[in-house]
């Protein structure tokens, strides 16, 4: 095991972790305000991948569109889901919202099956992006570089928006205390809508990145990454955007490390490893790295 191998695994882990981070941000924003695990979040990512594949197959279109259009479309999609399925449930017990989001997840998956096909299809990037660059023995693809750049840019933009804009302030207030925010005249539905739009947009981008990374897409590809991204959000401390990013990156690096550094017969257990990690975090540090504690009251 050379230092190069370790660095190589780190690069791979960071690439996967960046995608988890993008997904985790959307989950953590929504959970922060609504106390809802949006199980359909990963399926929005899947839709993003499919939308993106339309533009990838028509190779004339610049790659930028293949990222931008799914991002915008999925943002709208997220808002539609919120307004039709989740909005009628304001004030309902959290279990009702949880079940609804499972239903929405199913609905999206099977609508894709109906509209297209249950069969996986190839998602091949134009040659340039998958070309590897060798820097001091570590192989990067241009896609890896694009992933890092994209994630960093989006993160900076999002942080600025949440910290500086009026909507961002409304979102932070709603996340801190929904009732109080409503009382002081904040339009919480607007804030919730914004959280869904922003989160879903990132899921759309993540769809492009995930599909490019694995080269294959199918209607059920989103569920597990979505749940894993929630694990990442929990590790970072649910409700915290910084936590979601750190948690996503940590989870990606840990998962790749688990596969890369243990004997190959363990690699089948990588999903089990992720959820064992979740259990450990929940038991040792239930509020994650950056989360605020919640006290159960009568």
């Amino acid at each position: 095991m050379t230092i190069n191998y370790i660095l190589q695994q780190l690069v791979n882990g960071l690439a996967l972790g960046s995608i988890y981070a993008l997904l985790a941000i959307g989950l953590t924003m929504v959970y922060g305000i609504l106390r809802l695990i949006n199980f359909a979040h990963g399926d929005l990512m899947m839709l993003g991948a499919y939308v993106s594949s339309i533009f990838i197959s028509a190779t004339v279109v610049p790659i930028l569109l293949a990222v931008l259009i799914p991002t915008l479309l999925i943002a709208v999609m997220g808002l539609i889901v919120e307004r039709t399925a989740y909005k009628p449930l304001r004030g309902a017990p959290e279990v009702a919202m949880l079940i609804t989001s499972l239903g929405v997840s199913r609905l999206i998956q099977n609508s894709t099956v109906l509209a297209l096909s249950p069969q996986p299809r190839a998602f091949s990037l134009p040659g340039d992006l998958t070309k590897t660059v060798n820097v001091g023995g570590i192989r990067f693809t241009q896609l890896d570089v694009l992933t890092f750049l994209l994630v960093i840019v989006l993160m900076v933009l999002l942080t600025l928006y949440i910290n500086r804009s009026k909507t961002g302030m409304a979102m932070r207030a709603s996340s801190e205390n929904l009732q109080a925010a409503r009382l002081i005249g904040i339009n919480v539905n607007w804030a919730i809508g914004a959280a869904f739009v922003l989160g879903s947009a990132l899921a759309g981008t993540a769809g492009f990145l995930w599909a490019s990374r694995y080269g294959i897409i199918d209607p059920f590809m989103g569920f597990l990454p979505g749940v894993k991204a929630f694990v990442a959000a929990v590790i970072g401390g649910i409700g915290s955007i910084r936590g979601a990013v750190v948690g996503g990156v940590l989870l990606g690096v840990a998962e790749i490390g688990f596969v890369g550094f243990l004997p190959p017969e363990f690699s089948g257990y990588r999903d089990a490893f992720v959820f064992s990690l979740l259990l450990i975090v929940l038991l040792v540090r239930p509020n994650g790295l950056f989360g605020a504690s919640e006290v159960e009251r009568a």
Partner: protein
Amino acid sequence: MKSTIARKTVVLLGGLVLLVVLLGVADATLNNYYLRILQLIGIYIVLTASLNLTNGFTGDFSLGHAAFMAIGGYTSALLTMPLAARALQLAELPVWFQEFVSPFPLATVLGGILAALVALPVGLVVLRLRGHYLAVATLGLLIIVKSIASNWEPVTRGARGLSGLNAETNLWWAFGWAVITIFVVWRMVHSPFGRSMIAVRDDSVAAASRGVHVFRIRLVAFIMSAFFGGVGGALLAHQLTAITPPTYSFDLTFLIVIMLVIGGSGSVTGSVIGAIIMTILPVILRDLERRFELPGVSQIIIAAALIAFMIFRRQGLMGNRELHPSTWFMKKPATPASVDAPQQ
């Protein structure tokens, strides 16, 4: 009061006799296709009624029922597998095990017991969590169990699974276990223990302050639920006669959750109704789906129905109420002696 109890017993026994007669008629007249659907109804009643203990009555929303089913399914399959199939599939296991073939009823019970034994340490860990965290942790349990089933080659044969089991599950076993499950769950819920469960669900802080041992109640409910989950998994394995990791997928957990929710979590008879509806409906829908070649439509309809239920009738068909057949034939209906659970 005494006559009410006597009447209840009569109605109960009458109902059982009626069930036996109906099953006998069905067994003699229906073809295999319909018999299998009926068996599935029995199995799903076991699973839904047992999931109701945690998700409905104690308020611990678990997504891990299929994990316990897998444990029960694999355990019983290993125990009952015929010797010929064993020599081919389990050559790596110790010799004493290769020669021990358990009868099906024992294997079913042992499958349930092993699921319950696993539920004890798991419950000690995951039941520190509540709400969404518990849901995701139990979903994690399902994924962990599935990973083990997919990778523990010498015992589970990985993705190839175990096959060549005898088709032991028939109407009598399926509905026998359904009756046992309903009986046990009903007695649990309508006991001081059950009142504690409901108190924990409705307000755990208040329950604790009135001396309810909250954690113990939740743990016992979780373990009991796991036991019947294991039994249901064993029944399912011996209906399919083969068992592979995808059998016990998230889809299965989700289906049982839908049954519970549509029937009304918090109602034992609701579980039965939910299990019946949601076993038959997908069969009909899948049939239509094949006829019109519209893949995915059955799942779309079910998912949309679930969302509509959550929006318009959150408490499910039955809510917290129960059907009381013993009161149907009385001249003056008495107030149902249901558990005085407040509406959620």
